[in-house]
């Protein structure tokens, strides 16, 4: 049984910050509720106030400003998947959004919720990490910009303080010649959390790899950039053999972060294969 709570529906960011401040850590924000309600139901969460942020217009926008693209925290996965500007300037993200859950989940689940819930398997996180996305966080005390990669402390844990609100995510628009892709594996074809998800972004100049960014989700406590593999590939000539070697760097990082577990014998070859697949897919697109 879900314990009783107050339900607040603020219309502005300021109001929200006030409510959060007054609640002294006893409030929970609700956006789509697709993670929170499960937590309420199984008793993991028992807030005395729930603050619904879906009526705040400012949080619902996708905006282009010069070379950046910003996405409001309550923009839904469906909106991201179908947004022409995200598809143009951050296809790796719109591709990921289009594969989340099911139409019902994508219609209500938000990018802000996906980030703050901080699941190791969250599908938008590897893309956001390869996009070097920044989060804008506001509270009664301050307003700050955080590189998204620094937001995560551990599985389902972020650096956000209980009275802080994530308002927006922004990243530098990708140039048309930039290659990118998202690859995902799950136990079934819909409504299943990712067993693994990989995002890559890179450029090819005179058949050499440039500005490569690789992020893998679901295999480490928080989604990770694979810096070992990135450094290894940077400036190298794109060849099958090289990719194979780089894939070993990816699995090495995974094992270093998560240790050897019963599932490692499965995950190791698969993460290597999916990384190579993501690279090839990026080249084809």
């Amino acid at each position, binding site marked *: 049984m879900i314990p009783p709570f107050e339900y607040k529906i603020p219309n502005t960011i300021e109001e929200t910050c006030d409510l959060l401040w007054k609640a002294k850590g006893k409030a929970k924000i609700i956006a789509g509720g697709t993670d929170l309600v499960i937590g309420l139901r199984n008793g993991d969460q028992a807030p005395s106030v729930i603050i619904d942020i879906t009526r705040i217009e400012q949080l619902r926008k996708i905006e282009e400003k010069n070379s950046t693209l910003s996405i409001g925290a309550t923009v839904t996965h469906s909106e991201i998947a179908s947004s022409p500007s995200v598809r143009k300037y951050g296809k790796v993200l719109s591709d990921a959004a289009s594969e989340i859950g099911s139409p019902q989940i994508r219609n209500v689940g938000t990018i802000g919720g996906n980030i703050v819930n901080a699941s190791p398997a969250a599908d938008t996180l590897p893309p956001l990490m390869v996009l070097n996305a920044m989060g804008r966080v506001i509270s009664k005390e301050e307003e700050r910009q955080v590189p998204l990669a620094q937001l995560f402390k551990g599985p389902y844990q972020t650096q956000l303080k209980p009275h802080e609100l994530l308002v927006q995510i922004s990243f530098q628009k990708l140039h048309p010649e930039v290659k990118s892709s998202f690859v995902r594996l799950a136990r079934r*074809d819909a409504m299943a959390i990712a*067993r693994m998800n990989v995002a890559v972004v890179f450029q090819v100049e005179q058949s050499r790899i440039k500005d490569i960014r690789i992020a893998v989700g679901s295999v480490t406590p928080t989604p990770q950039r694979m810096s070992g593999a990135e450094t290894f590939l940077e400036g190298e000539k794109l060849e099958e053999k090289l990719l194979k070697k780089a894939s070993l760097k990816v699995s090495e990082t995974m094992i270093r972060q998560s240790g050897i577990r019963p*599932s490692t014998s*499965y995950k190791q*070859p698969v993460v290597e294969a999916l990384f190579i*697949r993501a690279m090839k897919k990026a080249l084809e697109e």
Partner: protein
Amino acid sequence: MNMRQVGIEIPKVDVLEKALGEAKYGADLPCQEPLHLKVLRSPTSHAKIVRMQMEKALRVSGVERIFTAKDIPGKNLVGTIVKDQPILASDRVRYIGDAVALIAARTEEAAEEAAQKVVVVYEDLPSIIHPEEALHPHAPLIHEKGNLLLEFHVIKGDVQKGFKEAEVVVEETYTTTWVDHAYLEPDAGISYLDEKGRITIVCPTQNVHYDQKEVASVLSLPLDQVRIIQCSTGGGFGGRLDVTIQCLLALAAFHLKQPVRIVYSREEVFQVTSKRHPLTIRYKSGAKKDGKLIAIEVDILGDTGAYASYGGTVAIRSAVHATGPYQVPNVKVRSRMAYTNNSWSGAMRGFGVPQMAFAHESQMDLLAQALKMDPIEIRLKNCLRVGSETATGQTLTASVGIGETLKKVKEWRDKLSLLKDDSKKPFIKKGVGIGSMWYGIGNTGIANPSTAQMEIDPDGEIRLFTGVADIGQGSDTVLLQIASEAIGVSLDEIRLIRADTAVTTDAGATSASRQTYISGNAILDAIKNLKHSAIQEASQLLNIDENDLFFENGKVKSRTCLTTSIPLREIAKRCAKILKGEGSFDPETTKLDPQTGQGVPYATYAFATHLAEVEVDTESGKVSVNRVIASHDVGKAIHPQNVIGQIMGGVAMGTGFALMEEYVPGEKTSFVNYLIPTSKDVPEVIPIVVEDKEPTGPFGAKGVGEPALIPSAPAILNAIAEAIGQRIYDLPANLERVLGAVQKRKLA
């Protein structure tokens, strides 16, 4: 015969109310100010109950009463055959989820709060997790009579001699795991005293008359003081053959004398309702060079969990079906079912046959491979036909359509364009696999009668009474079709009264794919008797000799005078009484010999063959089933759409059984972590209906409910084996197992 009602496309009779959301399922039932019930359950898998303290819980505002085993006036044990499962545990719990107390409160919240405040002190006992462990001589006992629920053998010919003559022998061990029925709605219902003071329970169920007996026994009441009414039921698949909420509701209503209501959560359904039996099957097959099977030796060990439920039934049925739909002269099968402290296993679509089909169909492909034969050819060579003798010594005399289902599938396969692997995706391997099955209709070698009544009252209303529970599979429609065809009036002229113990008689369970065949026949018998009494009455009314009268299209007619005819309704009206026909049917079977399993377990069998086309991602182990060609001998499709619906659903369930469904007691809690296929995971299905008429069936019909599921997983597993060149022996073929097999193949 030119039929008007049978074999035609008509909407199911319940389709509108369901499409419009008007049908009342358990949680929708109207009930005036009920008390809400909540069950307190054991958190541990095996323990003694040292003491229980209720004081704090009773002090929760709104709590009316807390029941324990002491409050049960009758027998505190239920079970379909062996009664060993308590309604509320008295001194001991045997699995995580055993009920220990039942709370009745004015609100659900209060009931839940009280449940948390009951203190139960347990003293842990050693738990048994594996059935092999359970059968060790010194294993701790889960039930006093021992940990072996049942051992059953099927012995025919001489297997030793058979294997000596065999030119190729394959032997492997197969395992399967727990599967949840995943029916649509969590169990929910209400109980109250009806106008006659009877304890009345309205709930989803597959068998109202069985529920009635259990409730009467628990409350120590005469049968007629208990009334069970089935509400709209979103599937059962065997999970609603055992009592779920019935006795809990009844116990509370009995003591409190006011309406009560219970609604399980999905988590509760996962934890406390039955599961498919995990079986370990050691299977040795021998064949001659030409592919003819000469001997099989099979050892089956099953896990019934904490309670018997249908464990015995599954042990026997899996042994009887061990050969698959093939003639084998020498057979030795041992089948054992053991108790453990796992979740209890029970009936689930197929009663062990889906597990056995996985084993025997893998064996057939292994033999074909060893003999370099085509998988369909080897099956055609061995399949049962009219005149064949089964492993239990039964000679099949008619309606053996397995060969035809194989031929239909072969036509398809031969048309399939050669499977070319995609050069762009070299890691995707494609494969095609075949799975066949046979399935005995009705209970195994025991009586399983059904009864029915058909009547016409002087006002002209025509009524059909049946105890059959329609759980969504469509028996209401099919039984009405059979009745309207036989009596010669249109379907909407007949009022159906069903599945209420106060007004209908025992039709047995909606299980074992039996209701079309057995209850369909009971209805035909009722109509035969109704016609007879109509002729008798007409003879008096018309003053014509009975022998000159006959029945046709809803009328009694004279053979000699072509203009003399009197409609049924007219007869009832003119003689001013209800014309009634009582009917019953019990298929002709014999008891199986306790030592050798020989006998006639079923009057008829259904047969089927599936072909599955799969793609295996050899880098991740992900399998996609692209298409299943499903060919079924159903005798006669009374309602073709229903038959196709069963086939579609069966393939979906079979896909889950093959690839992802895997219940783990204490770990899998709900649909969050127990995965079943979604619409994106189920293959395209091409159903093929073969009608090899069963002479004893109503209009030739047999059954299709369980057969629909059985061949899918074997076909999918055989297709995976073909795709990757390595076989998987354990279900489900999840990501890890498939990748493991790919790696094994690489090493080889």
